[in-house]
């Protein structure tokens, strides 16, 4: 028999703490596949953030640092400046990156810091129990927007990819979705590009992945994928927003 798909080597052989059907697992797998295919497991350093992905370091068989809430891009900067030959990536959720860590992500991009950011956007705070995120959709109910996000009171969703595409130091900014195999495959190509650009010394790259949180959305994993496709994709258009130095 010829292997068609085997478990990535740089993924550790443990059961994750993620809920059933959580697309974090898919994103992890795509990053691990990329590390394997590029042959960089021995020189990759990951930075875990705060939120559901706080334990990301358990799942990748590479060196890792666990960062304070929102500060992963700063931590990655410190690592990359000391180890310019290392391939450094952060793995951050939307609460971490788009709320408390907004300054760090924008300035890491502005510096053209040669790191890769994997940004999970599931429109909610997962780990803390389903509170409103900066990316929560208008009208979306969360535990802290129990009547639906009202723009008059809670403003509008933050669109990170569009925002960072305006930053000159950012080299590659793209948004993908994880709701079906075809989109997952596109996401994989984007993640691979982002790592390759770092290997080529091009500078800052960010891949935003639209993801589900079936537990806190109150849906089955399958319905969550459908909700993502029908509600998040229209609000957060997919595609590559920027490739290259000039904004």
């Amino acid at each position, binding site marked *: 028999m010829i292997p068609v798909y085997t478990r990535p080597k740089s993924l550790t052989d443990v059961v994750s703490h993620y809920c059933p059907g959580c697309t974090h697992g898919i994103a992890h797998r795509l990053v691990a596949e990329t590390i394997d295919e590029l042959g960089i*497991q*021995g*020189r*990759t*350093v990951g*930075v*875990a953030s705060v939120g559901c992905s*706080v334990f990301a*370091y358990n799942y*990748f*068989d*590479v*060196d*890792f*640092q*666990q*960062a*304070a809430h929102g*500060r992963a891009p*700063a*931590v*990655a*900067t*410190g*690592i*990359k*400046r*000391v*180890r310019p*030959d*290392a391939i450094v990536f952060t793995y951050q959720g939307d609460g971490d990156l788009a709320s408390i860590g907004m*300054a*760090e992500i*924008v*300035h890491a991009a502005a*510096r053209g810091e040669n790191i890769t950011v994997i940004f999970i956007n599931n429109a909610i705070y997962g780990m803390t129990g389903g509170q409103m995120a900066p990316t929560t959709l208008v009208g979306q109910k969360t535990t802290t927007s129990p009547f639906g996000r009202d723009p008059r009171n809670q403003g509008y969703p933050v669109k990170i990819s569009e925002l960072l595409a305006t930053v000159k130091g950012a080299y590659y900014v793209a948004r993908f979705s994880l709701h079906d195999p075809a989109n997952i495959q596109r996401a994989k190509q984007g993640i691979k590009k982002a790592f390759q650009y770092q290997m080529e010394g091009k500078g800052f790259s960010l891949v935003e992945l639209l993801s589900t949180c079936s537990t806190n959305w109150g849906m089955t994993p399958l319905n969550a994928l459908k909700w993502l496709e029908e509600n998040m994709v229209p609000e957060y258009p997919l595609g590559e927003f920027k490739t290259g130095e000039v904004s």
Partner: protein
Amino acid sequence: MSESVLMKGNEALAEAAIRAGCRYYFGYPITPQNEISEYMARRLGEVGGVFVQAESEVSAINMVYGAAGAGGRVMISSSSPGISLMQEAISYIAGAELPCVIVNMCRGGPGLGGIQPSQADYFQATKGGGHGDYRLIVLGPATIQEGCDLMATAFEMADRYRNPVMILGDGMIGQMMEPVVFPEPLDLTKLPPKPWATSGNEGRKKNLISSIYLDPEELDAHNWRLEEKYRKIRENEVRYEILHGDDAEWFFVAYGTVARICTAVMQKLRRQGIKVGLIRPISLWPFPDEAFEKVIDRAKGFLTVEMSTGQMVEDVRLAVDGRRPVYFYGRTGGAVPTPRSVERRLREMMDGKVPSQTDYFDRVGGAAR
């Protein structure tokens, strides 16, 4: 280079750090320590190092966390409000047991406060500042030369204990100029290896830099293991100076530049035959309790002088433990104790009176005791 050069304290400390092997510096502008960043921005490139001006103190100290975790010899500097912003990450650095040197050129607080010299961050530096059970090693130099000499010690201790070390300057140290003799630059090839660093796991198991322990038993064990390290530091890293401990009956207790003011008063009084001495803590944490044991039998009283409303005096009281009177005199916000007012307090103490704590209440009436 063994010749003496006249240099501003901030720049001298920066040069001393580079000679102590510091190759990574992350900072954010704040007065009165900007000359450290500016010097690093000019100099680090020449020695193959890296200078990054971060978008905030919060980001800068997290860059330090990353750089220290990756095995770099790294320093950061700031002044009081900036150090306050860094407390979360300092707790992470202590929790993850990473070595780094933090310079605080302390200015007057609270809040935005002022930009003049102060020692009001003693509590923050020595008692925690951030969350959780942790300790910084804190060194309080009294001269620029001592600051430079302590720099190599600070980096060496940071590596040996895998713990952040703070150099607590009192603003004056940073801004004044003094002659200084620099040590020879350290041979970087002789620094101890850091096999725990996140350098890529080629040929070994992966390394993890983290401070998370969700299992209560594990976190309890982690905290007590840290405490055991701190006990060793308390045992081995106490630094202090005693002047005239062999005959003095009345003691000033002061650190940093205030100790120099007290020394001048001490010398004047001794010329008049008054048996005055001085205890100068150099390591503020661990606090040099043993210095007090050396003089307690003969001592009649201690006068602690600080540029604060009374912070180190609490540690002095703990060390003296009620066996002798401990008094306090302080100025804050950039006001510096004058030799005359310091002398007056000592004489009041010798006369059996309780010296007034500050000139402020002398002027407006009343007294905070």
